[in-house]
């Protein structure tokens, strides 16, 4: 607060009004918290008063020294300047304090892929397993499962994780691949910037600004199995308004219809009891999606953004814990946001944002629930103070979960409906000690109404080996935590009555309160521009995990052979490894190759961690060639080593090679494009992968030919 007051300098009308507004805000905050009242109401008013504080600022000239520097740059240097801030701060990739990979819009476009997890798998250190045609286990450096809560997934910095399970449900995100500007993949604990869930890494999906996609756009992809993916977009700019509106429909056939779908059981002795012979791969999906963003920019100093995205998905059912209900599953997701970005006269800037996620899920006879999240957050980037660039922020999140258990064999959440609150504050200081040496410190504290208060941090040293800062060394220490989400803390389930009040599988609550999972890491890295267009990135890490939560199987008190399982903090684990990537890019195309080694060891043998361990060795290659006459050829290749199976009986998932090829040509004077492609050409069907909580799994189709037509005008 004191720093912001000191920066109010303008004596104009705007500055005078600013001072009044600022004083009102400060008095308001004091009175508000002195009063009794619900926490929800206080948090809403805090947001309003913070908005006033921002609104109290006047508009004026930017620091002219920044502009002068640009005129002293060469043409080549100007082509390297970022014009939009990435994630929390505007930084060059080589100066970022975490290991990061970027998937560009061009990478997405020429892959021809319609699913984001499929695109992610071609990046260093990312583990992806496919459990059905639309369900994926995605994790950075392993710890992946369909509902894994160890990798934070964001869209434009806004969380997508399920407040019930803690993981991102990729299949319900209202998002189109051709609306994505880039995907930032951060490897390592990043909780200091983003809070819990950023345990092993962050995936931040940045969408395109309306200004960058003006006009009409249509795309339709058809596969040999009869799947179709259609996307229509309209973006327009009028005076100070601009908008982007996308509408699309996906129709994906089941694995059975696609020639795969053979089921496998991990508990053959129970097949008769669970009705295994009746199982078939009902993993079709139909999804109607819309994503819209509206921007009002009255000046280059203020920007108001509003957005609404919705997806309405119906899918076939699948087996969980021996239960294969007859009803289809339906998922409705609505994501809304409102945001204001402001720049101030002293060179500082800030943002205030609200976002809301509403999810309704009907899981056949197992469970139906709806949850509603409200998140209020603010961030202030101070103008440089000496050699320090300081950034502070915080957020308040309000969650409500309401569930219904339709049958006695359903999942139940004890004590529901749940109302939970999370509050986090963070600060980042980037201190340029010398022209070549910078230290960045990040610190964050989070309070949770239902679990423990905890903190995250990261300390990084960046050292440029040369004056041009083409070669940067990075050393970091980081700490993050993961707070157990509602499903883990509160769920109970009973399955398959085999007698009065006797069930085949019983999930019981933990005998003690679950503690946060903790992790800390030591990291080192190098990013270098070896020659024009040629870059090398090397990263190494050691990471230790404390109190990992897993599933424990207990004895049947009646000795009848039933499963009694509970969710507990079991033991620790450690991981080490690294990634390296060499990339070359010029006007003719791109060639990049990478290798990652991710080792992971649990403290106890057969220790369950509610997720898969990483495949130890992974390697990938991407090649793209722009040919004469507007042809383009693209190849994506990945090798994945064996993924260790569930330590309590699951099979390992064998090593595999994946090769995707596309060829495309611009048509209609560059306004259109026709693409023919094949994904996973080397494999006809992919082996089955067991979901957490499932006894059975089925194959999914591998090789798939597709065609895509796009037009824009």
């Amino acid at each position: 607060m004191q720093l912001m007051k000191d920066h109010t300098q303008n004596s104009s009308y705007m500055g005078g009004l600013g001072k009044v507004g600022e004083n009102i805000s400060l008095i308001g905050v004091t009175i508000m918290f002195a009063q009794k009242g619900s926490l929800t109401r206080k948090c809403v008013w805090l947001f309003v008063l913070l908005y006033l504080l921002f609104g109290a600022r006047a508009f004026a000239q930017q620091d002219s020294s920044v502009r002068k520097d640009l005129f002293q740059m060469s043409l080549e240097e100007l082509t390297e300047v970022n014009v939009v801030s990435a994630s929390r701060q505007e930084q060059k990739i080589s100066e970022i304090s975490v290991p990061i990979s970027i998937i560009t819009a061009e990478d997405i476009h020429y892959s021809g892929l319609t699913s984001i997890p499929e695109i992610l798998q071609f990046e260093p250190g990312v583990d992806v397993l496919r459990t059905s045609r639309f369900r994926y286990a995605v994790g950075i450096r392993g710890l992946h499962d369909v509902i894994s809560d160890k990798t934070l997934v964001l869209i434009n910095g806004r969380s997508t994780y399920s407040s019930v399970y803690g993981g991102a449900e990729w299949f319900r995100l209202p998002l189109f691949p051709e609306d994505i500007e880039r995907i930032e993949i951060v490897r390592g604990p990043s909780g200091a910037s983003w809070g819990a869930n950023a345990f092993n890494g962050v995936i931040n999906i940045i969408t395109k600004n309306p200004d960058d996609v003006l006009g009409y756009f249509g795309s339709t992809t058809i596969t040999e199995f009869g799947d179709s993916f259609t996307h229509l977009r309209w973006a327009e700019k009028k005076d100070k308004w601009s908008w982007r509106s996308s509408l699309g429909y996906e129709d994906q056939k089941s694995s059975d219809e696609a020639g795969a779908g053979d089921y496998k059981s991990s508990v053959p002795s129970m097949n008769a009891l669970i009705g295994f012979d009746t199982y078939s791969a009902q993993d079709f999906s139909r999804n109607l999606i819309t994503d819209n963003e509206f921007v009002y920019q009255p000046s280059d100093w203020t920007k108001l953004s509003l957005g609404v995205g919705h997806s309405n998905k119906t899918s076939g059912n699948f087996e969980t814990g021996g239960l294969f209900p007859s009803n289809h599953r339906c998922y409705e997701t609505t994501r809304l946001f409102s945001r204001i970005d402001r720049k101030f006269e002293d060179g500082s800037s800030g943002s205030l944002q609200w976002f809301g996620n509403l999810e309704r899920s009907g899981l056949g006879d197992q469970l139906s629930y709806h949850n509603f999240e409200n998140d209020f957050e603010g961030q202030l980037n101070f103008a440089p103070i000496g050699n320090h660039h300081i950034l502070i922020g915080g957020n308040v999140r309000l969650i409500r979960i309401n569930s219904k258990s339709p049958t006695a064999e359903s999942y139940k959440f004890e004590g529901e409906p749940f109302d939970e609150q999370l509050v986090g504050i963070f600060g980042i200081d980037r201190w340029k000690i010398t022209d070549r040496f910078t230290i960045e410190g990040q610190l964050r504290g989070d309070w949770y109404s239902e679990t423990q208060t905890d903190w995250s941090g990261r300390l990084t040293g960046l050292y440029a080996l040369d004056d041009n800062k083409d070669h940067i060394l990075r050393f970091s220490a980081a700490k993050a935590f993961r707070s157990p989400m509602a499903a883990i803390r509160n769920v109970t389930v009973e399955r398959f009555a085999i007698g009065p009040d006797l069930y085949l599988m019983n999930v019981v609550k933990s005998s003690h309160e679950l503690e946060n999972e903790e992790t800390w890491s030591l990291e080192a890295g190098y990013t270098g521009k070896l020659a024009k267009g040629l870059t090398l990135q090397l990263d190494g890490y050691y990471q230790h995990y404390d109190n990992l939560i897993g599933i424990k199987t207990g004895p049947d008190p009646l000795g009848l052979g039933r499963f009694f399982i509970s969710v507990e903090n079991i033991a620790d684990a450690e991981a080490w490894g690294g990634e390296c990537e060499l990339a070359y890019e010029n006007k003719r195309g791109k060639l990049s190759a990478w290798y990652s080694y991710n080792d992971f060891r649990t403290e106890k043998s057969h220790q369950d961690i509610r997720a898969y361990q990483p495949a130890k060795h992974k390697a990938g290659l991407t090649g793209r060639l722009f040919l004469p006459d507007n042809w383009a050829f693209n190849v994506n290749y990945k090798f994945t080593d064996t993924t260790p199976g569930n330590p309590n009986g699951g099979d390992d998932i064998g090593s595999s090679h994946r090769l995707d090829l596309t060829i495309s040509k611009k048509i209609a004077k560059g306004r259109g494009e026709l693409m023919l492609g094949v994904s996973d050409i080397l494999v006809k069907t992919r082996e089955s992968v067991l979901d957490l909580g499932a006894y059975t799994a089925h194959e999914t189709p591998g090789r798939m030919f597709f065609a895509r037509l796009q037009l824009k005008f």
Partner: protein
Amino acid sequence: METSTIRSKLYILIVVYFGVQAALITPQAFAASASSREYQVKAAFLYNFIQFTEWPAAKIADNNNAISIGIIGDDPFGAAFDPVKEKSVKNKKMVIKRFGRFTELIKGANEDKSKSAENTEALRKCHVLFVCDSEKENLSKIIEIVKDSAVLTVGQSENFLDDGGIIRFIKEAEKVAFEVNIIAAKEAGVQVSSQVLRLAKRVITEETADDKNK
């Protein structure tokens, strides 16, 4: 004063302040002096393009010892050129000329034919002419006016190069890049250095134009 009275007065003040704030967020409230980082970078590019472009000797001589950058349309640059407005480039003073919208230029000209000649002459005298997004529907008319006058035309609309523009700004992965139409440059009578061409994302030459038309 009771707390509830203080609170109600505070709420009223907040509502009034919000109302004032909303009223202040209007286009007129903000001067053209503000400029975004994107346009600061583009301004720096234009300044650099001047250094790497050759104009006919007659054009250089016939301009009051100044090199002019014209901006036609809704100006997005604001104060972006301020750091260099008093500086020299190619030993000549740099001058920024803002023309406003093409329709306003023509509207005045329709009422006064001498004004028309004066306006079009002013456009032709520019060494660099940046065509703002607001003028994309009149782009071909603007290019027609300046095409024989050794003007380096720069823009960023989708079909800028196809309609005869010389350099088009694009954005890639949050960075500013550009494309060049050498054929249009030759027709205009300006010579763009190979150092600019080397950094362009796409260069339209006679060969690439022939391939496209096949």
